Every structure is written in structure tokens, then in C-alpha cells.
């Protein structure tokens, strides 16, 4: 916003412009006494100008943090708290899982999900890529998805099955809760859901690095992308990479790019990871692959594991969620609550 549109007297405006203050942001970080000296007016008059300026700054621009911001784009914790509350989550289609995740997969964060082969990582990935498209009327994000497939496990027929079940569930929801509201008819087709998943198949780690670099450009052209699923980040980094130090650098660079994407475009990043055995004090334990320094790079870390004949998810690391486990199952319709209803959620 320009100075000339401020509701102040013409003489004040003239003084401001002749002293070189042409935009509101130039007024945002100076004190009243400094301004009084610059414009050769009384301090109370300068204070008045600053007040008017900060008011119209707050009201007129999208940045709510006008006067207090030291660096462009900085936010106060209070503002962030409100923003976080207003952000939507991507449901996993299992209420128990959503529960321990604090509502679902969070936007603006990087969530890592790991587990043994066959535990359902890819299934969860496909489910998230479908669920991000649930329209806003149904409590979803109405976004699109990017699916980066490094292992070749993405099956279109499976995605179609999950998409069909998702649409059925939405229609069901419609019938029960919104009998009178005809406006919210489900207009989505399974075909549309598949069309809104941007699928990239990656065959080497160089391709993977190049694609992550390209994502920024791609997403700025497709602003409605609300989730990026990487299935899996690990595969191409487990062969051909002799130099472990350089692997760590490349991986953390990739992670920081993904974090930046998540922040800039307020989208969710879901990284699937494999597990490996780690030798500690003579015994072997299962840990997520790629080593210790990688484990710092993701905001949230979810470990999937077998417990008896049931699949469980465990929140292993998160700045805001408590450590908890919940059972889930992989059904023909996708990820759902575990059928055995007892001991569904275990808080620790």
C-alpha cells in the first residue's frame, strides 16, 4: 500500500513523501521520535501518523504481523498457533490413526512413515493421496496430490479401488448427515481422483534429486497440490552410494527442500521409509533406514509394526503429539480401523 492512500492530512503526506517514505513498509520499523526528527514535526504528530500507518497495514494487507515483524515473513507464536488451528488435516480413513496423529497428516509438516515390507506403507501412501482430494464440504482439503514412486509399488487398480471406496463413504456421509442439503452432492468420480494424482516414477537417485529440485516449480504452477508422497525415499540410496558422508549431505539437502516446500505452499509431505537392522550392544534391533542424522530431518516419525496378527502404528517422534500406538487394518477398501475394537489406542 502506498503512502498517498493513507488517511492523513495533505501536508503530512507531502512531508512524508519528500522525506523519502513512499511505502507503508518503510514506516513499519521506525520509532516515533526518529520520524518526528525526519519530518520536523512534533513527536505526538509522528506517533499519530505511525498509528494510522500500522492500522491500515494490518487491515489492508494479508500479513497480520505488520509492525512487529523484524524480518519479512516472521510471525509471532500466537499467530502461528491460530494458523495451525485453522489448518486442515488429511485423514487416514482410520479414526484411531487420526486420533494419535492429532487429526490426521498435518499440513506444513514433513511426516516420515516407516515399517517392514508388507506392513502397508504404500497402502497408506495411496490412501493419503486419495483422501487429500476429499472436498471442503466434506471436511477435506479439496487438494491434489503428487506421488513419487521410487519402488514401482504403486498399482493403479489399487488406487482405483481405494478411490471408489472413498467416494462411497462420502455419499454415505451425505445420506446420513445432510438429508435436506441437496447442494453437497458427491460430484467426484473415481476417474477424477486418479487424474488429480500427479504420478512420477523414479528409477535412480539422480532422477530423485532432480525431481525434488523441480517440485518447487511444478507446485507453483499447480498451487492446489496439498500433499507430496515419496514412496520410498530410501530405495535408490541403498545401492551405488559408497560415500556415506556425501549420502548424508544429499539426503539432508533433499529433506530441507521438502520442508521448505511444506512451509511455502502449506502442504503436507509424507515420506515413506524402509526399515533395517541395527546392531546395538550385541543385539539386533529394527530401526528406520538412512541412519541417525536422517532421523532429525523429519518433523514427525511414525513407525508401523506387527503386533501379533495386527498392524500397529506408533508415534515415534513428534514435537506436538504424545507417544501413542493404535491398531489399524488394511482392507479391500483401504486403511481402516482395526476390526478388534478392544485396546484400540494405547497411550504411553
Amino acid at each position: 500500500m502506498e503512502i498517498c492512500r493513507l488517511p492523513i492530512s495533505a501536508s503530512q503526506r507531502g512531508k512524508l513523501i519528500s522525506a523519502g517514505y513512499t511505502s507503508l513498509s518503510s514506516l513499519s520499523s521506525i520509532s516515533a521520535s526518529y520520524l518526528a526528527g525526519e519530518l520536523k514535526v512534533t513527536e505526538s504528530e509522528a506517533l499519530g501518523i505511525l498509528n494510522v500507518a500500522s492500522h491500515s497495514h494490518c487491515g489492508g494487507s494479508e500479513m497480520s504481523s505488520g509492525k512487529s515483524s523484524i524480518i519479512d515473513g516472521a510471525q509471532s507464536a500466537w499467530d502461528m498457533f491460530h494458523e495451525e488451528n485453522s489448518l486442515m488435516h488429511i485423514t487416514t480413513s482410520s479414526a484411531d490413526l487420526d486420533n494419535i496423529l492429532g487429526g490426521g497428516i498435518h499440513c506444513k509438516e514433513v511426516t516420515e512413515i516407516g515399517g517392514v515390507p508388507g506392513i502397508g506403507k504404500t497402502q497408506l501412501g495411496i490412501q493419503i493421496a486419495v483422501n487429500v482430494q476429499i472436498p471442503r464440504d466434506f471436511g477435506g482439503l479439496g487438494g491434489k496430490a503428487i506421488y513419487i514412486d521410487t519402488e514401482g509399488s504403486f498399482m493403479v487398480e489399487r488406487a482405483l479401488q481405494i478411490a471408489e471406496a472413498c467416494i462411497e463413504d462420502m455419499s454415505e456421509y451425505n445420506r446420513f448427515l445432510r438429508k435436506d442439503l441437496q447442494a453437497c452432492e458427491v460430484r467426484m468420480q473415481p476417474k477424477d481422483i486418479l487424474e488429480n494424482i500427479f504420478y512420477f516414477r523414479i528409477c535412480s537417485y539422480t532422477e530423485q534429486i532432480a525431481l525434488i529440485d523441480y517440485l518447487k516449480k511444478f507446485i507453483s504452477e499447480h498451487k492446489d497440490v496439498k500433499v507430496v508422497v515419496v514412496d520410498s525415499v530410501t530405495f535408490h540410496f541403498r545401492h551405488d552410494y559408497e560415500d556415506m558422508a556425501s549420502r548424508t549431505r544429499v539426503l539432508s539437502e533433499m529433506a530441507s527442500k521438502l520442508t521448505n516446500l511444506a512451509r511455502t505452499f502449506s502442504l503436507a509431505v509424507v515420506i515413506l521409509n524402509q526399515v533395517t537392522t541395527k546392531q546395538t550392544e550385541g543385539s539386533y534391533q529394527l530401526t528406520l533406514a538412512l541412519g541417525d542424522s536422517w532421523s532429525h530431518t523429519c518433523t514427525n516419525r511414525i513407525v508401523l509394526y506387527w503386533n501379533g496378527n495386527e498392524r500397529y502404528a506408533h508415534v515415534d517422534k513428534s514435537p506436538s503429539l504424545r507417544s501413542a500406538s493404535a491398531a489399524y487394518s488394511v482392507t479391500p477398501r483401504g486403511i481402516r480401523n482395526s476390526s478388534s475394537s478392544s485396546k484400540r489406542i494405547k497411550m504411553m
Partner: protein
Amino acid sequence: MRPQNLLQLTTQKCTTGCPILDGLLRGGIPCNSITEIVAESGSGKTQICLQLSLHAQLPVSHGGLAASSLYLHTEFPFPFRRLHRLSLSFVSSNAPHLPTNGNPCDRIFVQSVHTADQLLEIMSKIEPFIENSRGQPPVRLIVIDSVAALFRSEFDNTPIELKRRSCLFFKISSELKALAKRFNLAVLVTNQVVDVVAPNVGINGLKIGNLGCLYTSGRRVCPALGLAWANCVNSRLFLSRREEVIADKNGKFNGESGECNQTRRQLHVVFAPHLPESSCDFVITRDGIFGVEKQLLD
């Protein structure tokens, strides 16, 4: 880099030659993906591989890939006689759909492999081989029977050797996947089993797939080559066998107790991105491997 349109990206499947098994596998072995068959010896791994190499030659309209296949075998000798026998019954039941010239065995290229390094060397030659396949239909099925045999003797049980081994796994797998994607190939590998000795596997979380179903000949087993290799395949199938006395269906016998024993064989889906965990009985006959419908068993 452009995203692929999922609507044009349907996965082709290669029929196993039996409608019941195809029903369980939703059409057969998928292209552009690695399918592994795990089983103890004598369970029918090689039978399925041979049968698939023949059925890949069927036209696409009949569930095949209209293609030749490449059969890399690491266990000796290669079962030529069995392949010949299977090819006879294959020709007699599918004659109208097959090209009239030549024997179906001519469209199966057999190569023996002795070491893991040799396998890598051969794999680097597969690409020019597929591109220059004149005269025969293009190769669209690669079988490695078995991948375990390459790795079970050559490597020591030390951390460095094991690391070298798992590096090789990922290398082989990624090259297979790259080939599979480039030529839209189906890749079928077989793997052996090892006995599970620990009484409580799963407590440490060391559980790959749902081990509950992996019983064969009354023993508890798990696939060989460990966790690293399990990360390298897209789907894992398990074949189990169990000696049963016909008269008493509940009794389980290990070993031979006369003529009233019969072998009950089952195919289990351990994990696959597109299939639920499920299983189906099958029999091995002179003409190949065939699924048995559930109703007939009861």
C-alpha cells in the same frame, strides 16, 4: 519431467495358465514390478516359472504378453524334460492362439548364472538383447530361478560381507525394476526358505509380512536373504506344502507313513500392493500347476 497420467497407466498381467490362480492374483503376474515366489524345495517354484514362461507367449487377448521370456537359472540342471512335457500340453490346449511356426520352447531363452557378479554382468547385456530380438517376439518376462542360490554360499556371516550382500540386492533389484519399467516387463524371482529357530519371533519386531501363515511341512520358516531383500521385491508369494492323511483330515504327519498320504499345497499372498492377504490350494499334475476351488475341498 512430467507426471504420468494414471488413467493410461494400467498394469498388464501375465496369466499363469490357470483361471483359479489368476483369480487369486487378479489376472496373473503384473508387469513393471518384481514378484517373488518363496518356498522350500519341491513345492513347485520352478513349475510355476516354467509354466509362466510358456503362457507369456499367449496373445494379450488371452491373458499373455505375446512375448518371449528370458529364464536365468542358478540351480542345476535346468529341467529341460519338464519344460518339454509342459510345452506339449501347453500347445495342445492353446494351439489356435499360438504362432504356427516353431516350438514354444524356442521362445524361452535360457541362461545359466553361477555368481551374483555374473548376474549383474548378464543384466547389463539384457537391454541390447531385448532391443535386438529379431525374428522372435520381444522378451517381456524375466525369470530368475532362484535368486537365493546365488547368495547363500558366497558370502561370509560378517558385517562387512553382509553389507556388501545387501548392496548387491538393491543394485540387482533397481536394475531389474529399471528394465521392467523400460520394456514393461514382468519379473519373477524365486527364493528359498530358512527355518525359524527362535521360539518368539516378532517380539523384537523382526517380522516380515505376516509370519503366521508361513508353515511348510509342519515347520516354521521364513524367506531367505533377510530384511534387505524383502525391501527389494514388490510382491511376495509363498508356496506351502503339507503331508496329509486322506482318511483323517485333522491329523498332520511329517514324513512318510504309507500310501494314504497326500500332499496339500497352498499358494499364499504374503504381501502385494494390489492384493489382499489370501491363499488358495493347488495341485501339480503332469500338465502343470492348477488351483483347486475352495468348495471342492470341503
